[in-house]
């Protein structure tokens, strides 16, 4: 099922209330041909279950890992992906765009 931004933040609240560790990732800046607009959300739980997206699937894996770290240490962080980053090809923003993502635990 295609999830809307409504479903995503509602899920974040429901998951947290159910006692799961939860983090919210938000696209805060894009350059070039980024696939998802600023403000897009990805919600992740401590087991790596997720809903929504911050890219066309290119960097979700790295964001999910970072989100699980944020759940573990309780601290928000900003992460950047792009062609200038040597991991870009590995995690794959091959479209040439760059994005910055804010990742925060729900506490």
């Amino acid at each position, binding site marked *: 099922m*295609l999830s*809307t*931004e*409504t479903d995503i*933040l*509602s899920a*974040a*609240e429901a998951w*947290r*209330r159910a006692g799961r560790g939860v983090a*919210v990732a*938000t696209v*805060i*800046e894009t350059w070039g041909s980024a696939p998802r*607009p*600023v*403000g897009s959300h990805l919600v992740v739980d401590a087991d790596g279950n997720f809903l929504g997206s911050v890219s066309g699937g290119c960097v979700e894996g790295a964001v999910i890992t970072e989100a699980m770290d944020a759940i573990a240490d309780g*601290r*928000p962080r*900003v992460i950047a992906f792009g062609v200038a980053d040597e991991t870009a090809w590995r995690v794959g923003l091959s479209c040439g765009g760059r994005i910055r993502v*804010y990742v*925060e*635990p*729900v*506490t």
Partner: protein
Amino acid sequence: MQLDILALLNAERAARRAAILITDLDGGDQRVVREAEIAADPLGDMLAQRLASGRSGLAEVEGRPLFLTVQAPPVRLVIVGAVHISQALSPMASALDLAVTVIDPRTAFATPERFPGISLVPEWPDEALGGAVPVLDRYCAVAALTHDPKIDDPALAAALRAECFYVGALGSRKTHAARVARLGAAGFSPEAIARIAAPIGLDIGAISPPEIAVAILGQIVAALRTPRGGTPA
């Protein structure tokens, strides 16, 4: 993000009120400003502009990097007339994440068989709106497709009064001229009446019902996403 902030954002969305989440990217402090609180907020002007554009984004205030998440209510499409075009339009609009409702008092048209999975209200618009269908607001699009003034006109009047971001009506230029005269006689200003997209839909030469549905949806997306289309503010 604290759970109570997340809950407040979800509650505002459920109540169909806009809100802006302000995040200080240095340290993670957050607060929510509800639509009604924007005017009195120290950052009011900036927040009002953000809300008008509907776009989330970065801002710098007194040297601090902020991110503003603009949360507008989900967009609803109310289709008046359970007609052939509506059968094509409803699932296409659902695919665009619009919350679709079809209203038509003619029970021969408004059948679940013709509209599988679509919210269908077999009532007159005056009766349905504010009853089985939540009242219209600025985050609603209304498409009047029956060709019947007895059904279309009350819905169009309600849409104009509610300042819906999109109001469209099916019918030829001649039909529309008669409609303009009726709405004028009912007290609507020429400016208000001019907000009705008629004949409905972008001019793409659409002929079949699905093609007309594409033309209508293109016009709705333009009204939602482009300044000249009249972003809801």
